[in-house]
Structure formats: structure tokens, C-alpha cells
């Protein structure tokens, strides 16, 4: 049995110290990093691609559920929630967490969670390393994404869904445009298509998803293709493949 390369995130130092102390006593957990805020945690997951995340729920800036939504599914680790009170238990399991621990955590409970993970793996996931990353964990059932957490230089910003005009890919990167500014997001367009509310956004092209509210005009180019102009002047030609949804929208 391999070790679980793990990360923990909690904004309280004493809570981190206690969990660290307990985790050192669990053989199959290798704690490779810790974060004292959710933003650092997002960054660490991107850099280290850990197997397991011990996640606090109430944190400044972003809560645990909001944090999970920001992680692309191909690097989303397995999740064990660690929190002070049980009001979020159901929501936690809906997000496909392995377990939900209550503070102060007992060592035996922590060991149980990890051995539960091990036995699941023994029975079903014998070759974790060989699995294509997309199969490691399917999308958590946390509902449509409403906010985007982005890093611009050293600064983290949060863009709310209504402020987004469009998403597009260029040179292998996926960009979000809001108020005329483009910033890189870590998701692929396909993943965004799953995460975005279909009543607010529409995919019009292999490389473009636009918000309905930012559409200014349409011009038919024949053979089920349209030129769409957005409020900020951006023009995109829709592909035939996506035209049926657009037509439905145009008809009302």
C-alpha cells in the first residue's frame, strides 16, 4: 500500500497543529504541505497534485465547498472534511467526500477514515497510479459554479458569475473576460460547460462560451452558422455543431 500524499488546510494554527500531530501517527498518510488559507491551498494543489486533502469548511475568503469548485477535476484530490459542527454533513457527502470528521478529532476516527479509504482502494482502485486522471474522481455534485477565483500576479481576485462576459481558448489557455479584462482560468472549456449554469451561458463554438446577457446581435451566415456580436464589440462565428441550442434561444 502506498502512502497518501496529503495536504491540510485550516486557518487556525492550533487546529492545524493538532491535526498534524494526529496525522503523524497515521502510517499511510504522508503530509507534504499545509495551508493557512484557502488561496494558498488552491495553489498547493496545482503545484503538488496531492492524493488527499484534509479540508476545513469555515475559512476566510472562501469556504471549503467554494474551494473544491475551483479545482479542475483532473487534479481534485480525495477529500476528508474536518470541521467543528455537523450542520454541513449532508452537503459534504453530496460533494463526494470520503469522510467528515468533527473537531476535536479523535485519533481512532482519523485512522478509521484513512483505513476506509485504504479498503476502498484495495477493493476497487488497485492501480491508482495507472488510472487516467479524469477517472480518479468524477465531478463533485456541488451545483453550478457561481464565482471564479483567479490569481493575477501575486493578487487573488474573485469574479462573480454575473460579471463574466465570455470564456475562450487561445494557445492552449482558457481565458475569462470580465469588464474588458482577460484572465487565465484553470478549467478546460469542456469542464466549464459542465460547471456553468446552462440558462446563463451557452457554448457557441469549440473554443468559445458566451453569457446570454452579453449578446448584442446575431447575423445569419447561412448553413446554420451565425455571427454573434457581443456588447463589447467581440465577434464570434458559431459552429454548426452548437447551432441547435442557439436556434432554440433565438426562437425564444
Amino acid at each position: 500500500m502506498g502512502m497518501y500524499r496529503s495536504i491540510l488546510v485550516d486557518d487556525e494554527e492550533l487546529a492545524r497543529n493538532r491535526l498534524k500531530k494526529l496525522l503523524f501517527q497515521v502510517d499511510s498518510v504522508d503530509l507534504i504541505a499545509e495551508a493557512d488559507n484557502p488561496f494558498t491551498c488552491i495553489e498547493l494543489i496545482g503545484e503538488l497534485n496531492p492524493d488527499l486533502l484534509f479540508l476545513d469548511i469555515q475559512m476566510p475568503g472562501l469556504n471549503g465547498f467554494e474551494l473544491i469548485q475551483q479545482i479542475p477535476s483532473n487534479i481534485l484530490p480525495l477529500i476528508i472534511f474536518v470541521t467543528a459542527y455537523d450542520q454541513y454533513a449532508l452537503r459534504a457527502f453530496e460533494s463526494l467526500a470520503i469522510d467528515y470528521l468533527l473537531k476535536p478529532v479523535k485519533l481512532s476516527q482519523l485512522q478509521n477514515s484513512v483505513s476506509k479509504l485504504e479498503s476502498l482502494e484495495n477493493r476497487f482502485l488497485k492501480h491508482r497510479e495507472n488510472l487516467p486522471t479524469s477517472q480518479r474522481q468524477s465531478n463533485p455534485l456541488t451545483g453550478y459554479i457561481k464565482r471564479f477565483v483567479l490569481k493575477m500576479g501575486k493578487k487573488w481576485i474573485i469574479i462573480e458569475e454575473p460579471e463574466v462576459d465570455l470564456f475562450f481558448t487561445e494557445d492552449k489557455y482558457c481565458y475569462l473576460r470580465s469588464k474588458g479584462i482577460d484572465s487565465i482560468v484553470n478549467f478546460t472549456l469542456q469542464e466549464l460547460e459542465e460547471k456553468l449554469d446552462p440558462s446563463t451561458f451557452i457554448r457557441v463554438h469549440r473554443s468559445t462560451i458566451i453569457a446570454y446577457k452579453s449578446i448584442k446581435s446575431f447575423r445569419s451566415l447561412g448553413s446554420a452558422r451565425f455571427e454573434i456580436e457581443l456588447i463589447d464589440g467581440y465577434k464570434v462565428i458559431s459552429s454548426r455543431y452548437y447551432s441547435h441550442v442557439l436556434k432554440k434561444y433565438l426562437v425564444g
Partner: protein
Amino acid sequence: MQNILGYLKQMRYAIMVILLVIIASTTLAFYNLKQFEEFSTFNLQREGILLSHILSASIVSREDLENTSGLQARIDRFTTSSESNIKFIELNIMLLEGDGSIIVASNEPGNIEETSEEEHENLLSSLKYGKPVVFIGVEEDNDEDDENDAHPISDKSASFGGFQKEKRFLSVTTPLIFDGKGLGSINTKLSLDPVDEKTGLIRLSLQIATIIEIVMVLAGFAILVKLFMDEKVNLLTEESMRYLAELKALQAQINPHFLFNTLNSLASLISASPERAENLTIEVSELFRKILGASRKGWWTLGEELELIRNYLNIESVRLGKNLKFSISSSQPLDTIFIPCLVIEPLVENAILHGINTSVLGGKIVIDIKGDTDLVVIVEDILTIDENYPLSEASKGENIGIKNVCKRLNLVYGNAAELNLTTHQEGAIAVITIKNIRSFKYGNV
């Protein structure tokens, strides 16, 4: 006659207690039943999602899907696994082919190449959203239509008297997606009806509840008779009522997050710094003792309220470390001004929950008591903002604490008191103003 009426009057609390016991134990019995159902549904739902999710993960490649016998073996291993306490109704793997779909492996080989409309629909919608589709449904037990004659006796009992049982089930359809292309799905259907031994458990708990009910009613009568003879009825009810009121006040006042986070800090400090753990324990006991006292008194001095707030903030400082700074100052006399208990503390708690806790670097709470003939209480949170990190989304409509303070101020002082809360980008400021504070006599809250 006069005497009997008098006795009845004295007995009224005891009668109330007996009625309460009856109501409570009946509720308990029904609650047990309901909770058990919720618990089993919840657990099964969780395990069902997890299992189908794991089964889909155990299919490593597209090629695996073509190896029908391998998939069948995998499914057999799942359904016969003794570790799982899940009762599978159905478990199968469906592949989408052209315009229709077929099952390639199933726990009931008879099902192969025969898909229901419902399964087909779930398959399509799970592929559309790329996520598992979960739902709980009810189906009629149609054992009598079953062509399988292997169990004629059970068939008879199921259709006896034309009575049809309903079976609840949970269905989970997990899409199989390779290289962005949906190939099919894994479907699990689990029975949500409790297994026999557990039904037995419910019956047992109902019986126990009934027995407890009878015993308690009898005990209630016995106590009533005894007290009636000892003429202690009034004494007991007053004391126990007060005790209950205190407990209720403590419960209402202690936020569970606060309680468990504090206990967690304590657990962390006990080995790391026994001295700090000891100090924290003392702070917590003082806080709880003051809250209990508050419920008894109703009113106390401004100084007592500020001491309780200092207690609370000392405890939160242990948890939040350098993220919480605070100052408390007053130009009003602390011992001669009386206020309703716990009327300022909720503002401080609010400043932590909706202020300090939203910033990665925390902030400072400033409490200042001012005024001349009026009493002016200012509770301000000034956030320390790291320009690299955004604040939490402002949580709206959760200021229950503030609303309660408003209500209480209005009840006690009417129009003479007001509470203003102003939030801005770097914090919030709450101000209570009570006009001509010394004209109010304390005593009735």
C-alpha cells in the same frame, strides 16, 4: 370544595409535568422511527454514489469495456462482497450503441439486452451533464407477475389479499466518459427499505418508549402524591423551572461552532502548552458562569457586561491568534449604570463572525462606551486587509443576533433606544444609543 380547588391549584405544575412526559416520550418514539429511516436513506445514498463512482474508476480504459466477461466478474465481485451491507436490486453496465443501448454486464444475467425506458433516460441525462444522476423512487412490488416460479410461497404471501407492498429504491447512474466521449453508464439500484433485523430494532425501540412512558407516568403520580403530602409542590416547580430556564439560556447563548472550536483549541494546547490550556479552561468557565448568572439576573451593570465581553474575546484570541486584536474603553461609570444582560455581547460576536472571520489577516475590534446623559455603545470591526487576498462573500440575512438585540432594546426602552449598523469595505460599525440612561429603573426586562 374550597379545599379541593386549592389542592388542584397546587397540583397544576405536577399535572403539566405528567402531560409533558407523555408528549415527550411519544414524540421520542416517532422521532426514533423517523430518524432511523433518514439515517439509513442517507447512508445508502452516500455509499451508493461512492460505489458506482468507484466502479466507474475501476474501469481503466476503453478496451476494458470490450472485455465483457471481465466486467461481469467485476460486477459479481461487487454484489457478493460480504463487507458491503448494501442490498443491490440491480447493478449493470450499459454501453451506448448507435441509437439504442444494451447492457453488457449485470448482476442478473437475465437482464442482459433488455433496458427499461427509465434506465435509458438516466443514461442520456448522466451523459449530458457528465455527472451521476441520483434519484429515490418507489415501485410496486410485482412479485405476483413474476414469471419465476422458484418461490411460489413467497409469491403467495406478497399478493395475499390483493395487498401490494411498495418498495423504495435509490438509483445512481454514473456516466462512462473516455477522451470526452460518453460511451455508456454504470447503473446501481439499491433497496432503501430497512432489512428485517433493523425493522426489528425500530419495533423494539417503540416498545421501550412505551414502557418508559408508562413508568414515567406512574412515577409522576407517585411523586405528585408524595409532594402533595409534604406540601412541597410549589418549591419543586419553582426551582426546577428556574434550572430549566438557565439551561435554556446557556443553550441559546452558546454558538456550537464557538463551543467546539474552543474545545479543539484546548485539545491542541493541552500537550503543547499546558499553561495556556489551563488559562483557556479558566476563561471558558468564567464565561459560562457569567452567562448562567445573566439568565438569573436579567439586568446587570455595564461593567459586568464588559467583563463578559473581555472573557469572550480572550477565548477567541486563543483560537484566532494574531488575527484578533481588541480594545475596550469606557468614559461611563461601570458600576452605576445598569443594562439588560447580554445586550452588547451579540454585537461583538457579530463583529467576529461577519467581520474578523472574513479576512485572511483578521482585524481589530474596538469597543468604546461614550455619552453623557445618553449611553452610546460603539462596537467596530476594522479589518486588516491583505490586498492579495479577497474577503469572504458577505453573508447576508444571518444577523439573527443583531435582530434579537433590536427586539430587546425596543421591548425595554421603546423609542428611547436605537441600534444602527453600518457596513463598509473594511469592516462595520454598530452603535447603540439609549437616551437619558439614568431615567430608567431596572427590574423588568
